[in-house]
């Protein structure tokens, strides 16, 4: 399977959208080659601003530009965007509901050798807790590119989660991405795996292997964590009776929590969460890290084995 990083889709979309939207500006904090915001800088240098290593100012300046009517994309690594600049995002972007798209790359464990200090594992949790914030974690490069177009069109603050590592391409150009709409990738009736980001291809693989064992599970790509596609979650709960979530993120506050919140209040069914179990990561190759921290096809299968008898 072809592998490309989701951040490549971001760069590609920016280069294209810059021509479409004359009021679009892009900001970065000394990581434009890594986040791929440099692709915008190459084509529209007068509308690109490097803020230096100053993420709090990055978000504040982004808010100011948005307040004058600009469509602003602000990029840095996920850890610094959501960590260092959290309160600037909260009070200067989310609260006044300004049109800033926080496009954060290098999210999750697959940052690799830079280690725990650079691995954002609670970024979705943090961003999801903010009123007015939309949170999107594309599954592959195709979806990432389409998501960038969709958020450019959407008016309001968005957190877009992108990755560093090359990951499988699962969609073709016909994929329709819509903010707030999940997509079902595989039909099944015994349980449903709801995943986002790089755990989507892993979930598809797990479902394929389970099918060989006679266990037929549904797979859903929940690319938008907020607003969550509640209808899709509840339909899965009613029709399959058990849910497993899978995310490259802490099990606290991310996709698993979002799904659980909907289930407990509406239609409780047995559920298992695959994710990082409330620990910091470490340096290593992405593949090794995913294995060590339990983000594998095998872990997803085991979560399904655990959830089935609980039905």
């Amino acid at each position, binding site marked *: 399977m072809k592998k490309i990083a989701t951040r490549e889709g971001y760069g590609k979309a920016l280069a294209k959208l810059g021509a479409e939207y004359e009021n679009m500006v892009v900001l*970065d904090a*000394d*990581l*434009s*080659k*890594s986040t791929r915001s*440099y692709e915008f800088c190459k084509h529209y240098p007068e509308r690109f601003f*490097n*803020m*230096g*290593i*100053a993420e*709090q*100012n990055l978000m504040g300046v982004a808010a100011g530009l948005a307040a004058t009517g600009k469509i602003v994309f602000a990029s840095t690594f996920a*850890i*610094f965007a959501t*960590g*260092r600049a959290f309160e600037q995002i909260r009070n200067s972007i989310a609260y006044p509901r300004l049109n800033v798209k926080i496009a954060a790359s290098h999210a999750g464990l697959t940052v690799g*050798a*830079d*280690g*725990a*200090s*650079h691995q954002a594992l609670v970024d979705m949790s943090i961003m999801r807790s903010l009123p007015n914030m939309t949170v999107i974690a594309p599954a592959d490069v195709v979806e990432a590119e389409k998501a960038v177009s969709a958020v450019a069109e959407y008016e309001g603050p968005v957190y877009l989660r992108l990755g560093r590592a090359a990951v499988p391409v699962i969609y073709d150009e016909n994929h329709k991405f819509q903010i707030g709409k999940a997509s079902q990738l595989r039909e099944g009736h015994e349980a449903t795996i709801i995943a986002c980001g790089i755990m989507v291809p892993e979930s598809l693989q797990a479902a394929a292997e389970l099918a060989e064992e006679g266990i037929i599970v549904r797979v859903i790509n929940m690319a938008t964590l907020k607003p969550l596609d509640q209808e899709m979650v509840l339909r899965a709960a009613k029709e399959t009776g058990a849910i497993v979530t899978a995310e490259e993120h802490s099990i606290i506050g991310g996709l698993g929590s979002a799904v659980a919140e909907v289930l407990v209040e509406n239609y409780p069914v047995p559920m298992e969460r695959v994710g990082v179990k409330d620990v910091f990561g*470490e*340096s*290593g*190759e992405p593949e*090794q*890290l995913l294995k*060590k921290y339990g983000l594998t096809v095998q872990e997803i299968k085991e979560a399904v084995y655990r959830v089935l008898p609980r039905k």
Partner: protein
Amino acid sequence: MSKGHAAPVLYAALAERGFFPREELLNIRKINCPLQGHPDMQKVPGVDMSTGSLGQGISTAVGMALAGKLDRKAYRVFALLGDGEIEEGQVWEAAMAAAHYQLDNLIAFIDYNGLQIDGPVTEVMSPEPIEDKFWAFGWHVERINGHSFREIATAVEVAKKVKDQPVIIIADTIKGKGISFMENQVGWHGNAPSREQAAKALAELA
């Protein structure tokens, strides 16, 4: 080590000083090994603070220096910052606090190599005029050639004599100094050389 990405050189110095075996150096950035991509005080003996997020180390250095004053201990705190790192607002908050509390037990270095990741600091986000800024923040400023051990030693001796003020030693350096194909090349910020490149580099340094 406020500029935590310079972990390799810190590890090399610690190994040289016997904090852990030199063989361990070959395991840097590998899974299940203590030498993380950025220094981790829980994993590596001799590392006084976990860093990696730029701008934070200098604040923790201020805290350590403040504790030294509080406990009337004679130790000094040293911090190493990058010239790109000082674009972080937190650095200036720390600078203000250090001067406010008259932390003459704090000596900070800036590795002034003129480069950050996206290019020269003067093009990305200029920190100039750098000496004036630190003077204005109430620090004593020394400027040296960062490649001269003699100048480093002298500057530290001067710094030790300064009273009631923190000291910043701005060390002019060349990134990749002494290696023809690395000198002043932004692209070498975070890359490891290939085997051939490493051999060539070592030959040039010898």
